[in-house]
């Protein structure tokens, strides 16, 4: 059987921690830390509360917690309450980021002093 992508439907309430590898889309409620080698997507109905570490984080719902990702994307309906540490970040028009963006910015030589 082919490996299906993870999906937590809107009725699902999980309190605990998620770890592992793969892609998970949360349309329900998840309270706890997420450590995923792969992609975490928070659907418009999704509510995630906890620190998130994943390769890719896409938020169209609400994420309360710090994000540590290679790529972070906050969609037009997304809200992130927390700090975002990422190599690449995108915030769509309408999306909300209530926190600090932590990114290694390569400044030109004359400004990096």
């Amino acid at each position: 059987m082919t490996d299906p992508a993870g999906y937590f439907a809107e009725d699902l309430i999980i309190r605990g921690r998620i770890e592992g590898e793969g892609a998970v889309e949360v349309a329900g409620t998840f309270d706890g830390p997420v450590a995923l080698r792969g992609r975490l997507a928070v659907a418009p109905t999704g509510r995630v509360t906890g620190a998130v570490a994943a390769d890719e984080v896409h938020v169209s719902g609400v994420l309360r917690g710090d994000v540590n990702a290679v790529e972070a994307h906050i969609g037009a309906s997304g809200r992130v309450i927390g700090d975002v540490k990422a190599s690449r970040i995108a915030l769509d028009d309408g999306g909300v980021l209530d926190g600090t963006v932590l990114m290694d910015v390569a400044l030109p030589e004359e400004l990096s002093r």
Partner: protein
Amino acid sequence: MRPRTSVVPAGVRIEGSVDGEGDLVVFGHITGPLRLVGLLVVEEGATIRGHVHARAITVRGTLKGNAFGDEVVRVEAGARLVGDVFAPRIKVVRGAQLAGKMHMGDPDAPALDVYDPALHTLTGRPAPSPLAETRVLDLHGDGIPTVSGISAPLRRRPSRSRQDPPEKPALAPLPTSMPDLRRLRGTFRS
């Protein structure tokens, strides 16, 4: 509208409680209690450690914990289940590994829905012929079937043998008087 079926994929591990109104298919690993109003499918390769409660439970992977099925619990070939099973209907397919007590209720409950793995849902078709499906397991090796198929008549285990607790070995009688401490003290004096 029923919510979409939730999926825990193979590489993912959840530690904590899982509660839902809909259906859940587990390919990955869950440690913690699981309560669903809908269906639970523990797929091949999946492991669940904790008690699970759902309307209908299908186990093809590993479950360590009790399974409470409001309608049915199916333990498929290749499944490993260590725990008690509580359901009005229990189906165990030959090839399943099972250790635990079966608690079955009314055998005249309505027919099973049929789980369709392609849709990950119950289709509501009538259950297949009981004769074709019936498997009788004799888990205890005592000639009394422990689990029967879908609607084969349930034979209640006679209350003798297993209900009577084994006789405990008699304990040595308690001493009726204290030993003479003065004599003991004498033996320990250096």
